[in-house]
């Protein structure tokens, strides 16, 4: 694959195309089909958060190198309302959009590394990684 893939997220249709692209990249990087499913599911949840809370944003999918290992990074960035209380948003069952509220803690369980930065009024960026077994 060349560099990184960026998918603009503006509608529910983009959620589908982001997760499909994520699966393709995961397969190219040699992830098992089970792990590719976990990655695609995480991308689906992150893209849905963008559509639900920020309306538009971007998902970037790229290869990452660690100590003697390779992996995939997914960065979901938006300029939406941001999250006032990140700790609360990471708790199972918390939601402000009437959804199940399982998004972020679920994504954290699907992936190996999880980082979130958010500023109220400025936007949210969630960066996750999964290492190839």
């Amino acid at each position, binding site marked *: 694959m060349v560099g990184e893939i960026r998918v603009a997220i503006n509608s*529910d*249709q983009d*959620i*589908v195309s982001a*997760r*499909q692209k994520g*699966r393709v990249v995961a397969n190219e990087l040699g992830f098992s*089909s*089970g792990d590719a*499913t*976990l990655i*695609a*599911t995480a991308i*689906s*949840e992150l893209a*849905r958060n963008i559509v639900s809370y920020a309306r538009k944003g971007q998902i970037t999918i790229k290869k990452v190198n660690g100590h003697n290992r390779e992996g995939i990074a997914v960065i979901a960035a938006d300029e939406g309302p941001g999250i006032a209380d990140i700790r609360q948003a990471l708790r*199972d069952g918390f939601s402000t959009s009437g*959804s*199940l509220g*399982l*998004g972020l*803690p*679920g*994504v954290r*369980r*699907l992936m190996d590394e999880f980082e979130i930065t958010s500023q109220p009024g400025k936007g949210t960026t969630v960066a996750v990684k999964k290492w190839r077994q």
Partner: protein
Amino acid sequence: MEVPILKQGAFLIATFQAALSDADLNQLRMGLVQQVVKFRSRAVIVDVTAMDVMDSFASRTLREIAHMIRLRGAETVIVGIQPEVAFAMVQLGLTLEGVATALDLEEGLAYLNEKFKVTN
């Protein structure tokens, strides 16, 4: 993307494709309930064999479909959840509590035929 709904005697069979958007799922939810009313169906089989991702929205929609159809007096069986999809669902904390599931279409039909003692 249209989801084909097949009428098989007293049952309806809806086959999901891989790339269903939220809008498709919402449309299907309404369409299925309407068809259950129209055909006075006893049960609906939702075949998700082709779905490679079942995220929180898709699971919630399936649960809602099953509950709506139950209110109508019919039953829903979800068939064909792939092992990898099941694994991802559990990691994500998603459940289909209170909704019948079966291995595949054949098992789903066998379960319903036994339950309703009908010959299609």
